[in-house]
């Protein structure tokens, strides 16, 4: 770096740091040309906005590009989400583009070896396999898909192929949050927003570690404390984490204890008469699961019946089930019974990766509804997402096996018809049978065809199931040796998934392409391509369109609309088709904009209204519903269902749940009976295993392990052990041990009382390390409604290496 440029960047860094030191509050929506004043102006250096590529917090960064290369990253001061701050991952995000082992050429496995092929051949191979057997093809996507990528995949599969076997990795991370919202409000996604963190008096983290997983969000709360405000943080968890360190109260629960605790709070609210009678009478119904064949709809129960069912969940009984002392349950009951304070609940994987995921999500919503801690800034039950667009791409575009865009589902004839009309498809194009959810999809792919495994070609984009699926030996590794099973993987780097791939497609990453994400607070974000991808890496969205067009050329009827035109046809101003399926023409137009403008028509169906694409170009994201005002401007919504902010609430109602599943504008307060986890420690496997993430690495580490500072800070996965357990087993700090479950083994170094401190009988292992695949041990048991597996609890034993059997 020359010294002039270095000097410039240094003074820019000082300006950026200085502005954080003296910075004040920013307006809620800002224009792209605001807030970048302090960034250095240098010949050849340009700055542009993008959301961070990593977590669902959705921080905005300013990306500095010089000579076609990302050279600097700054926190975006104009962004309401992060106000200029980034976490350790965010400020290194630019480096993810420059790992030296980037995939740059399509690779086909021939006689066991990967050989380079041309893109034309790769697209033809895929199209042929689909053409010959469209119903045995499945598409596995991601909450890291951009919104247009997910939308194109969705249209290609459900509209074009009439095949619903499309599901995302988000099934593994937030499906239970979706079913919880649907069961409670009749519509998905949080009512509140991050402003709740600025205004709550009490923050309850339910099996959630935002200090490491959503650090910038958590800093909004710790910052308030450093300014002298009092915020009580109550951490309910199965192990001590960095969030516990910052907490006022740490309540250590047993696995599934959250279910009992939420029932216990509701019991106390009812018993003490401290629930919000007026709110409940006006805005809520009570609901229980049907005795036979429970559904998300449930059945209405009276308040009396609810009282009867909840009566047994006394603080003492809850203490027995959860391990949290009765007086702490009473403390929670009292807090929720106090309407003078504001309480925000936060959760993420702890409540979602849970075989009672739908139940615990609904119960925590129920605690807030029953107590009236809902709908005022600071009073909110809020789920966070782990991926940058789990909300935008999966939940809103509906890239799940049963869903269609705009909150529609394939099972309903009127929904299919609406969707076919939007897409200008022949009636009956969309299949009415939901496709395979993630676990089922991989079961069907890894099972021999002769035994009923009816998925033969699987296309994986923007995700790494070879590392993240539970029970990897059964659900992924067993693909090996199955001759007629063909795995296509679009990736940026070699991963555990590409190891078994038959065809690897090199993908463009983050600012190497146009994109849009939707973060955890309903905020839709947009960015432009800033640098070229390396070698022959190409956009995932282009891949889908190119395959679709190849099928169109081959005469596949589904790739034509009612007028016989290609389903992804884009015309120029003179009405001439732009050949976007040819990569050299893909950027002749803004394909993202075309797809988004088509997609956003769906968004009004569930009052998730989106603004035109160009509005997102100007803003650092906008929270839906975004509604046009009389003066032509577009206004975002921070608090849904609350009259003071949500334009869809009928005047005078104060609150209105306008997608209520009981069709009366009310939310549902559910009762669910506590049930123990499906696998509990026993004599043979005496320890609980919990898995999760660490601050330095994002998910499977594909990107963050290529960032030297992060990799150096956290170079290897480990097993966290309680010191008493380690002592009893004669295990020393750093010793390598074998973690063994009924499904597999994993060798790891031991970290005793390390960053996280599990109680006796529990071990914790992060899953970011592709050299230590802990998901060989985890369990594929899943929630009956969301189909989301439980990665947080299964039974294992810890063996010293000398005790472990040598694998035969």
């Amino acid at each position, binding site marked *: 770096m020359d010294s002039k440029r270095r000097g410039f960047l*240094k003074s820019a*860094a000082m300006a950026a740091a200085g502005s954080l*030191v003296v910075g004040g509050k920013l307006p809620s929506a800002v224009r792209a040309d605001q807030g970048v004043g302090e960034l250095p102006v240098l010949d050849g250096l340009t700055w542009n906005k993008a959301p961070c590529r990593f977590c669902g917090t959705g921080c905005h960064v300013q990306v500095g590009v010089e000579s076609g290369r990302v050279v*600097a990253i700054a926190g975006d001061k104009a962004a309401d989400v992060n106000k200029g701050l980034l976490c350790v991952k965010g400020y290194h995000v630019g*480096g993810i583009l420059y790992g*030296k082992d980037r995939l740059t050429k399509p690779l086909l496995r021939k006689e066991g070896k990967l050989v380079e092929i041309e893109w034309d051949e790769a697209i033809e191979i895929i199209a042929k396999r689909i053409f010959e057997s469209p119903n045995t093809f499945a598409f596995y996507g991601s909450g890291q898909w951009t919104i247009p990528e997910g939308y194109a995949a969705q249209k290609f599969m459900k509209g074009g192929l009439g095949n619903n076997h499309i599901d995302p990795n988000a099934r593994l991370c937030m499906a239970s949050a979706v079913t919880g919202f649907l069961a409670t409000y009749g519509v998905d996604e949080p009512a509140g927003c991050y402003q709740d963190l600025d205004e709550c008096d009490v923050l309850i983290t339910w099996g959630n570690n935002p200090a490491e997983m959503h650090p910038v969000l958590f800093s909004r709360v710790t910052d308030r404390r450093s300014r002298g405000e009092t915020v009580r943080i109550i951490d309910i968890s199965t192990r001590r984490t960095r969030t516990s360190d910052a907490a006022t109260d740490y309540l250590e629960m047993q696995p599934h204890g959250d279910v009992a605790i939420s029932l216990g709070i509701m019991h106390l609210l009812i018993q003490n008469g401290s629930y919000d009678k007026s709110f409940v009478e006006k805005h809520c119904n009570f609901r229980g699961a049907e005795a036979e064949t429970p559904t998300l709809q449930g059945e209405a129960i009276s308040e009396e019946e609810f009282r009867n069912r909840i009566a047994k969940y006394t603080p003492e009984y809850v203490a027995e089930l959860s391990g949290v002392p009765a007086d702490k349950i009473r403390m929670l009951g009292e807090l929720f019974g106090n309407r003078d304070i504001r309480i925000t609940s936060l959760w993420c994987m702890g409540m979602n990766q849970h075989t009672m995921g739908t139940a615990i999500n609904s119960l925590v919503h129920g605690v807030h509804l029953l107590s009236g801690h809902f709908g005022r800034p600071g009073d909110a039950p809020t789920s966070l997402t782990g991926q940058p667009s789990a909300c935008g791409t999966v939940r809103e575009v509906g890239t799940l096996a049963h869903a269609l865009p705009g909150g529609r589902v394939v099972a309903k004839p009127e929904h299919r018809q609406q969707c076919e009309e939007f897409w200008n498809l022949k009636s009956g194009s969309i299949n009415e049978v939901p496709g395979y959810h993630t676990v089922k999809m991989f079961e069907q792919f890894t099972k021999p065809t002769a035994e009923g495994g009816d998925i033969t070609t699987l296309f994986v984009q923007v995700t790494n199931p070879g590392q993240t699926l539970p029970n990897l030996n059964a659900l992924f590794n067993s693909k090996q040796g199955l001759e007629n099973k063909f795995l296509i993987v679009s990736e940026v780097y070699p991963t555990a998934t590409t190891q078994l791939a038959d065809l690897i497609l090199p993908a463009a990453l983050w600012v190497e392409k146009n994109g849009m994400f939707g973060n955890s607070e309903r905020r839709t974000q947009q960015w432009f391509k800033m640098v070229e991808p390396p070698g022959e890496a190409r956009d995932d969205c282009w891949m889908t369109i190119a395959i679709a067009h190849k099928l169109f050329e081959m005469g596949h009827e589904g790739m034509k609309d009612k007028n016989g035109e290609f389903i992804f046809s884009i015309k120029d101003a003179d009405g001439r088709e732009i050949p976007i399926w040819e990569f050299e023409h893909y950027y002749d137009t803004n394909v993202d904009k075309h797809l988004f403008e088509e997609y956003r028509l769906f968004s009004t169906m569930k009052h998730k209204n989106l603004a035109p694409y160009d509005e997102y170009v100007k803003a650092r994201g906008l929270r839906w519903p975004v509604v046009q005002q009389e003066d032509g401007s577009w206004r975002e919504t921070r608090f849904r269902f609350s009259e003071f902010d949500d334009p869809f609430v009928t005047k005078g109602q104060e609150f209105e749940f306008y997608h209520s599943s009981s069709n009366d504008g009310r939310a549902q307060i559910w009762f669910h009976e506590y049930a123990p986890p499906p696998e509990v420690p026993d004599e043979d496997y005496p320890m609980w295993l919990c898995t999760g993430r660490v601050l330095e690495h994002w998910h499977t580490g594909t990107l963050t*392990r290529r960032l*030297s500072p992060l990799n150096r800070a956290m170079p290897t996965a480990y097993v966290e052990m309680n010191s008493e357990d380690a002592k009893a087993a004669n295990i020393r700090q750093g010793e390598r041990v074998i973690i063994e479950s009924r499904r597999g083994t994993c060798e790891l170094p031991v970290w005793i009382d390390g960053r996280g401190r599990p109680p006796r009988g529990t071990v914790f292992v992060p899953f970011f390390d592709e050299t230590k695949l802990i998901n060989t041990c985890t369990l594929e048991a899943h929630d009956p409604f969301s189909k989301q597996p439980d990665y947080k609890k299964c039974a294992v034993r810890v063996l010293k290496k000398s005790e472990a059997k040598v694998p035969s």
Partner: protein
Amino acid sequence: MTFSSEVVEHAATVELLRSIPELDIGESSGCRLAIVIDTDSQRRDREIWTAVQQLPGVVELAVAMVAFDDDGQQNDSQADC
């Protein structure tokens, strides 16, 4: 940098910061102080970061901007394992 109390109450720590040659001190306000670290290697970056984090009275470090040079080209997931 965020200190546990007003920056002026941490004169000794600020003196220690001044002794780090790669570190420049900028504006302060209340408990907060702006600093810039400019080093030739990511290793040195890390060392300074860790050292600063452990100085008396320091409760938090937040990053406002990062610029990097061509070191990134050498990133490789296996390099440090």
